[in-house]
């Protein structure tokens, strides 16, 4: 993604930024509220997708990001409901806790070289463990019925609960932009070169002096922490957490789908993919409503399979590659 370096790229980025900042001015009324809701969801899930792609692009395919998401969301929700701890502190605890958990999982994985299919399946197990633990500890967590955040009666900055969606819009927009910034920083750092070398060949990377274990744990912890931030944002916005929507194989697969669909090697790939999958499932939901339960998801699944067969590099990835090819020698 070198395109943003050019003037045209900058103008487009600025225009897009201005549009996003002023969007709530246009989105008023019933449909406007719905539009805001969809955009907020896109910001949250894009952030989670970016977090996933931090690992995915280096060959660390995790099918267990639901674990980090669930940990983040439930930590903040439980601390608020039982101890009235403000989500501002709760979020710090949630992200720190998730980071520690990720380090505990990542350490043996990189130490014992669990890679490829095995890494995917180990992380899948981790996601299932968290989902099942949430269900098993039903006295605390509400089990599979989920947990509603205790209402703070009125709008409260301390509780991060607002009736006005615009607050959440700007909040999640900021978090999403911060996620992009992290992605960019990593993309331009030495760590990226090191991680790419590790992704290609661990032994060779180690032989030129790259500390393989440290980099792998670092990237996993960073990815998990960002995912937890997404979990916290989700919990605060929806004010309801449920093990099926936040943990386990279903949600983990959805995250990966969105990223692969958009393309995981580019800055905006995860966002494009997430926006597309959310737009797709929302529009299918509007078309079918409550008439044919399951039909929307059926088409969603079918389209995902077709996309993966016919657009293996992702939509945004394929487009970006096509655009990069046109100005001779511009993109490498």
């Amino acid at each position, binding site marked *: 993604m070198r395109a943003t370096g050019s003037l045209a790229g900058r103008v487009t980025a600025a225009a897009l930024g201005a549009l996003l900042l002023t969007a709530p001015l246009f989105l008023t009324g019933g449909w406007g509220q719905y539009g805001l809701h969809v955009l907020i969801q896109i910001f949250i899930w894009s952030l989670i997708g970016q977090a996933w792609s931090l690992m*995915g692009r280096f060959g660390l*395919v995790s*099918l267990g990001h639901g674990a980090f998401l669930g940990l983040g969301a439930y930590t903040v929700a439980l601390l608020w409901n039982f101890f009235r701890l403000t989500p501002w502190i709760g979020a710090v605890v949630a992200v720190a806790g998730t980071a520690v958990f990720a380090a505990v*999982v990542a350490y*043996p*994985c990189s*130490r*014992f*070289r*669990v890679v*490829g*299919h*095995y890494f*995917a*399946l*180990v992380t*899948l*197990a*981790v996601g*299932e*463990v968290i989902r*099942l*633990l949430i*269900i*098993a500890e039903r006295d605390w967590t509400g089990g599979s019925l989920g947990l509603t955040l205790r209402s703070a009666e009125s709008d409260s900055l301390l509780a991060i609960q607002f009736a006005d969606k615009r607050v959440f819009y700007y909040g999640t927009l900021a978090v999403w932009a911060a996620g992009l910034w992290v992605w960019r920083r990593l993309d331009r750092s030495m760590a990226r070169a090191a991680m790419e070398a590790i992704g290609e060949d661990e032994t060779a990377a180690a032989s030129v002096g790259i500390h393989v274990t440290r980099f792998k744990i670092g990237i996993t912890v960073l990815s998990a922490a960002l995912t937890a931030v997404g979990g916290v944002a989700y919990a605060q916005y929806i004010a309801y957490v449920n093990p099926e929507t936040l943990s*386990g*194989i*279903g949600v983990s*697969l959805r995250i*990966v*789908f969105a990223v*692969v669909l958009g393309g995981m090697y580019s800055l905006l790939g995860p966002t494009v993919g997430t926006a597309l999958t959310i737009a797709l499932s929302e529009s299918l939901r509007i078309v079918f409503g409550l008439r*044919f*339960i*399951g*039909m*929307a*998801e*059926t088409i*969603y*699944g*079918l389209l*995902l*399979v077709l996309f*993966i*067969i016919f657009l*293996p590099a992702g939509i945004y990835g394929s487009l970006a590659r096509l655009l990069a090819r046109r100005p001779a020698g511009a993109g490498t």
Partner: protein
Amino acid sequence: MIDPIFLAEAAINGVMLGGILAILALGLNLIFGVIDIVWIVYVDLVMLCMYAIYFLSQVHGWPIWAAGLVSLGLGALLGVAVHVLVISPILTSPPINQLLATGGLLFFVQSFATFLWTTDHRSVRFSLPSFEVGGIFLPATRLIPFGISILAMLGLYLFLTRTYMGTAIRAVSQDRDAMSLMGANPRRVYVVTSAVGGLMAGLAGALLIFQYSVHPFFGGQFGPLTFMICVLGGLGNMVGAFVASFVMSEIISIAGVIWSTEMGYVIAFVVFIVMMFVRPGGILARRE
């Protein structure tokens, strides 16, 4: 303290569950060993076969054995369909895309089942006797599936070792490239493997319907467990998968009696994660 009779009963139930898990794991492992793709959708094919048995036996009044045979055929058909329609176009794609294609199929199958049959739980009623040995109950609904699963594994073993096709399948799983050099056609081997893997899914469906009710999200109950058994045994390693099935089923059964069903699964998964670190190549693998 828990009554030792309960523990003994749990251990025996574990063995019987292990038989069925072994059928699932062997079917998935066979496909993985030969084609090198994990079918995330595998247990959802089992779910479709269970629905077939339910409708044939409960709605159309077929005898259960006939419905079971249809389930085998349907499983094989689904296996071939998945391979021809989804897997063969992406045989050379990166592994993540292959994984996701079968994952997308999972969404498709689950939602389509919800659309067709709603989320109601449906079960086939059996009136089978239960035996009591020394205070331990052995219901026929567990004994019969266990017996069939052992016979089926014997059959699979004979197929893989005594037939030309079986030998070809084993050869491909050992060295994919050498196989085509020998003049054998890997495409045919892939299709037959998918059919046999699907057949095992159909069989597992027929055995699971004895004890479990079927619903669109049935795959979630056994899917992750099946992947983990395959990895624990060593992906592609049939004997390892067999042993791992019983290890996992015993953990689930016994821990399920001591704590709760969910905790049984949690402990099984944690054992799996720990085992991955201790023996990354599977429980029977020699360390590289």
